[in-house]
């Protein structure tokens, strides 16, 4: 991700935190963001990517929908008198390959219903996911592939 | 309300002291942490208790709108918390190093500076 974009994002966060979108405050946010980024300069990904605003929003909407659903499902699951669960860890073959994308995907998966990213393989081709319902692995893989992963590819390629 | 807090303080002190007395270095360290909390609650209570209203003047006023919690004990506790945290960290690392250097986790075994087999002083002249 671009360093400048990061900096601007941080300045926006600063403005949001302080609740003041004045120019002076924004400049201060830029300066502080610059300083913060300087401290982690070595670890920031330098590869340039593209950003599609609309797709990002669409990804966010999908995520919020999934999140609420996820919460609901788990809530009903644990409050049901007989918990019928078939958990397990399955391997998910990744098609995204950038660290940022893998991370984003893994996090989104963790936050969504019944799935939890446990590990990424060393060669970054496989994501190991714990699912609360592991009876149909193919279905799980399919849902991710055509859900989050595609949205991510659309948004950041 | 002070009564409940007094009771709580008593409990915190009791548990902290019981742990401090229990020979195991780690239990002692845990006891010190609880003891520190007991002291903080003690200071808090001794400044009298007031529910919910923080001593912070709202942005649109020049003075507190009404009675608020006593700010001074809070400031004192803040100082005390920071200090006791520093000491807690130090004692913890010290216990760790003691385990490394002396090899025991029990105060009964900690007898390097004052050895068990101290000899009588020389009797001659």
């Amino acid at each position, binding site marked *: 991700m671009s360093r400048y974009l990061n900096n601007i994002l941080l300045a926006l966060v600063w403005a949001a935190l302080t609740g003041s979108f004045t120019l002076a405050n924004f400049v201060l946010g830029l300066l502080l963001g610059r300083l913060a980024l300087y401290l982690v300069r070595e670890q920031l990904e330098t590869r340039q990517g593209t950003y599609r605003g609309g797709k990002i929003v669409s990804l966010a909407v999908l995520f919020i929908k999934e999140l609420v659903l996820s919460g609901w499902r788990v809530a009903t699951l644990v409050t049901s008198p007989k918990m019928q669960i078939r958990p397990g860890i399955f391997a998910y073959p990744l098609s995204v390959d950038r660290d940022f994308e893998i991370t984003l995907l893994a996090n989104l998966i963790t936050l969504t219903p019944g799935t939890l990213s446990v590990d990424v393989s060393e060669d970054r081709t496989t994501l190991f996911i714990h699912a609360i319902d592991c009876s149909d692995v193919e279905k799980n893989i399919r849902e991710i592939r055509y859900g989050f992963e595609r949205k991510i590819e659309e948004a950041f390629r | 309300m002070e009564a409940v807090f007094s009771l709580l303080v008593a409990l915190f002190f009791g548990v902290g002291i019981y742990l*401090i007395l229990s020979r195991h*270095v780690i239990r*002692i360290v845990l006891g*010190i942490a609880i*003891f*520190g909390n007991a*002291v903080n609650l*003690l*200071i808090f*209570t*001794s*400044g*009298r208790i007031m529910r919910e209203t923080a001593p912070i003047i709202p942005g649109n006023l020049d003075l507190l709108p009404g009675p608020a919690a006593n700010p*001074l*004990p809070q400031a*004192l506790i803040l*100082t*005390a918390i920071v*200090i*006791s945290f*520093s*000491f807690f960290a*130090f*004692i913890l690392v*010290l*216990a760790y*190093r*003691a385990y490394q*250097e*002396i090899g025991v986790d029990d105060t009964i075994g*900690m*007898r*390097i*500076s*004052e050895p068990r087999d*101290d*000899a*009588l*002083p*020389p009797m*001659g*002249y």
Partner: protein
Amino acid sequence: MAATDPGALGAVLSGPVASGDWLVIAPVVIAIAAGALLLMLRHHLRWQAAYASGCLLLMLAANAALLVRVLSDGPLVMTMGRWLPPFGISFAADALGASFAVVATFVALICALSSARDIDTTGRRYGFYPFLMLMMAGVNGAFLTGDIFNLYVWFEVFLIASFGLLILGSEPAQIDGATKYGILNLLATALFLIATAYLYGAFGTLNMADIAVKAAGLRGSAPLMTIATLYLLAFGMKAAAFPVNFWLPAAYHTPRLVTAALFGGLLTKIGVYALLRSLVMIFPVERAALSEVIEWVAILTMICGVMGALAQTDVRRMFGFLVISGVGIMLAGLALGSPLGVSGTILYAVHSMLVMSALYLLAGAMREMGGSFLLTELGGIYRKSTFLTAVALLIFLAAAGLPPGSGLWPKVMLAKAAIDGGGWLLAGAILATGFMTSIALGRVFVLAFWRDAQKAGPVDSTIKSVPRLAIYAPLVSLTIPIVVLGIIPEQFIRIAELASAGLIDVTAYVRAVFPAGGS
């Protein structure tokens, strides 16, 4: 009490301060700034000792000027942040605090000078000098502050700094000693804080002058006896009074000798100072009620201390116990509470700061000359160095309270105060302690100095050979005031009497803190 109308600033804020008033805070600020700077320059090993010594010299000058000023004009007060007391934190130097600060800083300066030979590169890199400076910040702050919670803070400052000094070296014995020292001292300061919390709950104020004034009004309703007893316990622990003296013999012999010298000189005396401040100044009535308890504590502290000293083979451990017996002697004055007794305690504390530091530095010199710390192995020092022997003799005499050392006069004052007050047992214990101390130190002299060297061949290879001047200079600089105090003690005694008078009659102190007429 000051008006709460924000418009009437005159009633809320103090006026401008004269630049001379800065003397009261200068030692602490210098020490903190110096410590911080030394920490930043931690890796510039070469200049640390000189820089620290220079700062200590500056602090000593400030303290000396402060003492002179306090002696001529009475207590000097500065309330921080221009708030009026008791709302801001007051620093209030009276004769007691200023004189203790002078002596303590002097001792620290000597220790800084002698650290040149005792502290290795690792010790410097891991902060010996910052620890030293921050410890002196704590010590000076404790002596000069006029606010009881602030006193607690300074206690913690020098306590944590003393931890740092204590563990510098990480030998098993150090770690073990530090664990005991650390946990027990932590408890002591926690008790101090607890007592202060109760005090605040009862008085609603933290300024010591304010408390002293208000105590009279609260007697009868507030649980002042219990609070005073808690202070006695907390500070008694800090002072290493029997039966809560455990931390001292467990730790004092483990660190580098400069550190031990610093500890032996300063730490317990701060406990004694706080006892005087709290019990004589704030709680005189409660002190009187507790006097019998304090008397027994004093006697047992003396006896257990000196018996502990007799029981030791390691001279450092022996000196640790002598610190304790000295504390017992100081507690005698607290038990008596009479002007003579209190001034005896004050003078004894000054003496003890000088002598106990000197003893530990001497232990270092003895090891360098005699190859050991153990009485079983030491010997032949007289043959090696007549000069060191002479200095040692003077220090021993002072420690035993014999002429021409500094210990004589405070001991005479305390014994006289005890006899005047009918404290026969106390007087007997004071004298018996002096006697047993002379046995203990006489044995050291006989075995380590007179007796022939006990070990054949080269001594311990870990002992660096150092120029003798480096050994002698700090020792001599401590011995000179010791002997001066022994031979011409008048000025010292007069200051001690002023200090004790200022404690017993708080009017001047209170007026200095509340010039307008008080709260």
